[in-house]
């Protein structure tokens, strides 16, 4: 009986909270979701070839690379850090994979690539958490170092492979979707579960919400933050390997354009750049939204020159909504 009373009281409190939320907060919570749906409907009507299995599969596949990196970035940002080295790790992992595939076999190559990403992520994590270097600066520096090492090793040349099983890997089909898309789906579900349901997710929210309070509650802030850097490195490696498999060739600048766009996708989805608040599903929505815009530009034959203007404006609006929602 008391349980019922509590439940009634709880429901009343929920309804009150729902009534009282500020418009900025609602916008931050659900705006991108709504906009994505609207954009989807619009494109379905405006472009003949949008709502076709081929095109939608294409959109999913093209979102995969960005989505894998942005999902990993979500955990890192929630825990209170940034990683600007994911572009360099993307390239490094791709190159290592290709080199090992050429000299050994595909499975060994993929494993080597994944390991590269995790080790580089771990290094970032140790530098940031143990030595207290600001993550922005630390990962900016490490991305320069990694990029430099890549230049030394490759001499600035693309790293290529003709290994058939590797270059067809990412396009392999399962149940109508290619491997890229499947990896994105599984990765996003996994990270979403970790953040929303697991004890580690709670610790990430705590570390990002208030590092001191978390530490005084017995949370190993350095441990959990280091773990998010490893996840970030692993995400970049997975994306880098898939991308290498897609083109069979890794340029030294691979991934550099993905760094800021993946942070942008996180913010557009509604995760707070200040840490302590956010979700992986939001990032997935953000990624889909940005991909739909890309796709729309293609299908409607708009000048891609305007793409950046649209992208930039959307990111600005998302960041402004975030700032407004935070104002009390």
């Amino acid at each position, binding site marked *: 009986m008391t349980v019922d009373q509590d439940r009634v009281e*709880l429901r009343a409190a929920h309804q009150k*909270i729902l009534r009282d939320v500020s418009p900025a907060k609602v916008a931050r919570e659900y705006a991108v979701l709504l906009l994505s749906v609207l954009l989807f409907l619009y494109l379905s009507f405006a472009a003949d070839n949008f709502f076709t299995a081929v095109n939608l599969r294409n959109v999913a596949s093209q979102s995969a690379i960005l989505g894998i990196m942005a999902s990993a970035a979500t955990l890192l940002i929630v825990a209170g850090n940034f990683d600007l080295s994911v572009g360099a790790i993307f390239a490094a992992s791709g190159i290592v994979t290709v080199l090992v595939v050429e000299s050994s076999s595909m499975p060994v190559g993929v494993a080597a690539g994944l390991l590269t990403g995790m080790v580089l992520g771990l290094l970032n994590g140790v530098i940031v958490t143990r030595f207290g270097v600001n993550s922005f600066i630390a990962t900016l520096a490490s991305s320069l170092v990694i990029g430099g090492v890549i230049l030394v090793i490759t001499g600035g040349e693309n790293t290529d492979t003709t290994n058939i099983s590797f270059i067809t890997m990412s396009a392999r089909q399962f149940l109508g979707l290619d491997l890229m898309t499947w990896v994105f789906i599984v990765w996003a579900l996994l990270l979403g579960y970790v953040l929303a*349901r*697991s004890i580690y997710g*709670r610790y990430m929210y705590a570390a990002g919400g208030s590092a001191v*309070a*978390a530490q005084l509650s*017995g949370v190993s802030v350095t441990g959990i933050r280091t773990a998010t850097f490893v996840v970030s490195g692993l995400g970049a490696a997975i994306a880098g390997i898939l991308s290498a498999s897609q083109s069979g060739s890794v340029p030294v600048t691979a991934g550099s354009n993905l760094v800021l766009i993946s942070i942008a996708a996180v913010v557009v989805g509604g995760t707070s750049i200040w840490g*302590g608040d956010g979700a992986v599903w939001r990032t997935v929505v953000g990624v889909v939204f940005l991909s739909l815009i890309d796709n729309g530009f293609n299908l409607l034959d708009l000048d891609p020159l305007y793409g950046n203007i649209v992208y930039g404006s959307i990111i600005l609006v998302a960041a402004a909504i975030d700032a407004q929602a935070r104002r009390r």
Partner: protein
Amino acid sequence: MNVDTVLDAASERSSVAHRGLALTVEGIEKRYGAIHALKGVSLSIEAGEVRGLVGENGAGKSTLGKIVAGVVAPDAGEMWVDGDPLRLRSAADALAHGISIVAQELAVVPHLTVAENVMLGREPRRGLAVDHKELRSRFLELSEQVGFSLDPGARLGTLRKSEQQKAEILRAVARDARLIVMDEPTAALSSDEARQLVAATRRLAAEGRTIVFVSHHLDEVLAVCDNITVLRDGRFVRTGPSESETADSLVTSMLGQHLASEYPVKSTPSRTGTPALKVAELSSSTGLRDVNFEIWPGEVVGIAGLVGSGRSELARAVFGADAHDGVVQIDGERTRITSVRAAIDAGIAMLPENRKELGLLLERSVTENISIPRLSSLTRFSRVSRSAERQSVGAMLEKVGVRASAADAPVGTLSGGNQQKVMFAKWLMTSPRIFIADEPSQGVDVGARARIYELIAEMAQQGMAVLIISSELEEVIGLAHRVLVMRKGQIVSELADESVQAETILGHAFGTAAAS
């Protein structure tokens, strides 16, 4: 021209410069999410008046102060200044109209000097450059006027919080504010500093400025204010002249019923057998030197001392938050406490001072805040069991007296008293044997305070060893069986039972009493 006319002219000038603003607000409404902070408050303050705003935490007094100073925008309501309607868009806008706020949360630039902070935006110029000599002399002039002594060249960030607060007050005066809102100005100050501040406030008022004084400390409010307004639950209750008020009469209005803050009856601890906690030769880089003490199950031990005497540092060292040397024994067994995790696992809980900065994740839910130190016990295969979590948190909320419907609310939306109860729930959930509470009633209203005192007494009765750190001597004396007095990182005296008296404690804290 005789002397009188010169003086008259001077006083006229100064009275023009400082003529306070008359303020009227009507029907002020404010909501923060689910919290209805102000429900149509109206009041009128005369020019040159010192008006106190009192009420329990969550009564809306700070919110009202912030609205008057333009920091927070009201949802509805009107405001008139000197008879003219005024709608403030920001704190800067308020400043332009002569209204300034000295807030609990300081807004200082840590890397600038005291003088530069005070004169920020008002720097005297010589050409394009700041005239530092003139800046310094104006600063000294101001300090004299207000009666503070601060080193103008010190970097503000290196100073104690109380001195930063003084700089903030000087800044308001430097900007010629004619209405100054002081929001809990003495919260971070020692009692001596608080007295200075009260005196300074009277001087500002004597110059003709209008002052709105928001505070928990009823004795200060009674000492400094001309009139006092009581708010309760977001509503205006009444306004009365200070002479006809007493702390009791104010508390009665604040609560709506008579409830004096009383300390629960002390139990008698046995102090036999193995101490729950024994600390020997404890030293730390944070300034602790050779600290030794014991505490038995069922005992409440108070730690008294001046600000900076090492009280919080002692708590942090025992709790594994700071590195330390020395021997710690729990239930007679030597225990290495190298981290907070190790301390929690060994049965130690610490409720830190300043819950907003050190204790709570303000944007996360009450449930998440409470479960975090013991989350691993609610987890299977790294998945948090939400039903188990809800159940144990619910039990704890009931124990500390927070309504169950608050479980999903962000903890930052609760009143100070409820936030502190949530902190108790969080640490009780770890079933500690040693409970350290640093300033357990800081920023808490009278009702919640009584509940917290009861909790502490209950905890001791159930066999917990409780360590209380408090700047309020009365609280230490009211709760503790034994008091350890600290000075300069050492325990200088230990007083038990009948010898626990205010004068003795203060004597040891200041170092004027003979060593015992």
